[in-house]
């Protein structure tokens, strides 16, 4: 158990509304990631963080922003939700091995539905 929680676990929202998903870790790891999982696509990286206030874009970052003001929390925001953002969102932490964060451990996921 890597001590990762995600909230909310389920959310239904309407197109155009802002949505914030929270990822919380208890073990003070430096690296954190947000992924989305869609049928036929595996997991795709949205944004990642390598420290407080240090974030960068992944492969599917359009329409998303992130913030990390504390080591333990990594927030994912959909500024104006669209139906294409209906997905399951996973947060992960990276555990450093020989270099950087080579093994990631995932939270339980948030199922988001945008109507």
């Amino acid at each position, binding site marked *: 158990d890597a001590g990762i929680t995600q909230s909310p676990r389920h959310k239904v929202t309407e197109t155009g509304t802002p949505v914030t998903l929270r990822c919380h870790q208890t073990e003070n790891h430096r*690296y954190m990631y947000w992924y989305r999982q869609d049928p036929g696509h*595996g*997991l795709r990286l949205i944004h990642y963080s390598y420290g407080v206030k240090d974030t960068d874009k992944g492969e599917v970052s359009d329409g998303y922003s992130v913030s990390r003001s504390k080591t333990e929390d990594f927030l994912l925001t959909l500024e104006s939700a669209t139906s294409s953002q209906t997905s399951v969102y996973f947060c992960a932490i990276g555990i*450093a*091995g020989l270099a950087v964060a080579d093994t990631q451990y*995932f939270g339980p996921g948030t199922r988001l539905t945008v109507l």
Partner: protein
Amino acid sequence: DQQVKQNSPSLSVQEGRISILNCDYTNSMFDYFLWYKKYPAEGPTFLISISSIKDKNEDGRFTVFLNKSAKHLSLHIVPSQPGDSAVYFCAPCDRGSTLGRLYFGRGTQLTVWP
């Protein structure tokens, strides 16, 4: 452009037999390869990994083989058990580049029947 391919979306195996899940990649910079298992409504769980300096890594019933020249890896599960039924993702990374980013394949649904 898909850098990681798991060409079998599903695999069905009888309990006690061997399950072999395959993964192909195109990026020669990948130097660390992970497998994750995912049950419905749960997050992916780290299963086993292998470094590019090895060609085999074993952990109990799970063995991962790496063929760098063919850019191919496989996960063997012996013997397969019904509790192994899940989606398996191959996820390589290039540890020398962007902060341990993983590149996920689309997954293979393994079903182990009694």
